[in-house]
């Protein structure tokens, strides 16, 4: 972006957006509040996947399974009376540990084979959720997951829980921003752009890739811990490969590797059934066509498209500026 004016506009727009997010829930009814909460939760999961995919360049097909791991961990603890903080801590810890364990042998082999291992894990997780009834409630799952209380204030009302989810999102977003700007983040970027060169510069590519994947998975778990009280029921069919593919689509459609990509992608995925409701039965077909069309036009997603347009505009302006300064052959 060029020009101080543009940065000021961007900052103002950003501020307006945040203000809207803070104020809007007060005007929404239960359905709208549910959508906002769902969007916040999905964005957290998508941010984790964006870290793995967009920044470290690894394809994970198990993000949905990690959401499930987090959801079940939280559900099991909170239905036995443990506080939400403990549930969240467990969700993060288990997801991180499983992510590390999964990634460690897989990355030893070849980079794009993580996709297959995560595919296998996705199926295995679903089967464990469904079959191990002693732990997970089996086919019926765990019902009646309570919402947390913050300093004696119950989050049970939809409005309160929506703000809780938004606050969690803000926290995760801030943490991600810090991570990307830190030396770790720059190593992640190096991994994506040119792994060989990164390696020659002394970056331990395997360790950083593994770290990105484990952190990404942990964020999936965190999203799960927020999802469980939102719906109140945790059951196996919610965490199949379909969810993982949905999250992958969110990241790509929003713009893989862009900080705001997951926000946009999750918004589109959550709102698409609403916006396309006029087409009733055909909305899934239309959504698929739109996604294909978008990817053909811009494989870097919507933000990639906007970026390209901005660059195009900037380039055109620069050419015009150069042309204006060029001396002409006819004299003054």
């Amino acid at each position, binding site marked *: 972006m060029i020009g101080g004016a543009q940065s000021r506009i961007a900052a103002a727009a950003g501020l307006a957006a945040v203000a809207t997010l803070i104020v809007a829930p007060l005007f929404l009814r239960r359905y709208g509040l549910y959508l906002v909460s769902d969007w916040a939760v999905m964005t957290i999961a998508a941010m984790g996947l964006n870290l793995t995919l967009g920044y470290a360049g690894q*394809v994970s097909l198990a993000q949905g399974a990690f959401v499930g791991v987090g959801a079940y961990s939280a559900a099991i603890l909170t239905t036995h009376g443990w506080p939400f903080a403990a549930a969240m801590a467990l969700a993060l810890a288990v997801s991180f540990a499983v992510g590390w364990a999964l990634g460690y*042998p*897989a990355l*030893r*082999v*070849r980079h794009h*084979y993580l996709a*297959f*291992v995560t*595919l*296998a894990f996705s*199926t*295995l997780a679903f*089967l464990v959720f*469904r*079959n191990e009834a002693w732990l997970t409630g089996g086919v019926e799952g765990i019902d009646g997951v309570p919402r947390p209380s913050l300093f004696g204030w119950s989050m049970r009302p939809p409005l309160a829980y929506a703000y809780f989810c938004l606050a969690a999102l803000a926290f995760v977003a801030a943490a991600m921003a810090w991570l990307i700007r830190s030396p770790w983040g720059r190593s992640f970027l190096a991994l994506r752009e040119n792994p*060989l060169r990164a390696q020659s510069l002394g970056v331990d590519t395997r360790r950083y890739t593994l770290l990105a994947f484990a952190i990404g998975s942990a964020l999936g778990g965190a999203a799960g811990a927020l999802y469980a009280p939102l719906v109140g029921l945790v059951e196996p069919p919610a965490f199949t490969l379909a969810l993982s*593919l949905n999250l*992958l*689509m969110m990241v*790509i459609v929003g713009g*893989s590797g862009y900080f705001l990509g997951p926000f946009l992608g999750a918004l589109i995925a959550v709102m698409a059934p609403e916006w396309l409701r006029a087409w009733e*039965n*055909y909305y*899934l*077909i239309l*959504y*698929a*066509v739109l*996604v*294909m069309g978008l*990817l*053909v036009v811009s*494989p*870097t997603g919507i933000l990639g498209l906007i970026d390209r347009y901005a660059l195009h505009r900037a380039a055109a302006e620069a050419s015009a500026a150069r042309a204006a300064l060029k001396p002409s052959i006819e004299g003054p």
Partner: protein
Amino acid sequence: MANFVALLIAGLSTGALYALVAVGFTLMWQTSQTINFAQGEFVMLPAFFMLAAMNRGAPYWLALAVGVALSLAILGLAFKRLLVDPMLRHGVLPLAIATMALSSFLKESVKTFYSAEASPFPSPAPSSDLKVLGVAVSWQSLAGLIAALLAVTFLQLGLSRTRIGRQMQAAAQNPTVAQILGLPVERLILYAFLLNAALVALASALVSPIYLAKFSNGETLGQAAFIAAIVGGFNQVRGAVVGGLLLGVVENLGAAYISDAYRDAIPLFVLVVVILFRPNGLVGRAEERTV
């Protein structure tokens, strides 16, 4: 012992169908680095073209021809021109995601415009069983096995013995040099897509009598093809056959002897073990590393 033989034979017949689907999958990767997540739906769809033709009174063989023709046009030509060509230069992943959207599109279209119910599908083979080594095998499964083996044999011969086949391989291994040498690379890649379209149409006609034509068939078949291709060796057509047959047998034996509740995990377990210890698959050759 009789049980084991019965399971083995049943597994081989299912495996042959997986192999047929996996072959096209491998072919598209080899020739144009396309990972087609919609391959399962590609197998599901031609059956509905054929059913639509039969509903309008066409006899089986005419419906089959119609199915193959539409498959070539839509799943071969249109797929390549509209989706693959514009996206190929942007790398593997965006195209893979686009094929995911395509699979959803095909599935939902069939569900909405044809039916959400399963439809019976006729088979040229009789619906009775044959006794092999004291075990009953259905003629339809046998037909599938034979057709799959024939198709793969012809394909393998075609790729290695004919000039066009060798040109296709060259274009796949190094498109730039192939182009410099004057090979019509674009057209050769198109041939690969058309070949896949024909293969999936054939697979569709063989699979649908057993699976019944339903819009959701693509899900299991697609994943099976994917696993079979990786396990067998992603850069060898032979690998798809080995992978498919192995997968069918492992699924059956696993469900009978290991666990019924975890039967879906067993093939994936095999997948993980294979790629950890033989990353190029059981039959695959090591790929050149591009720097």
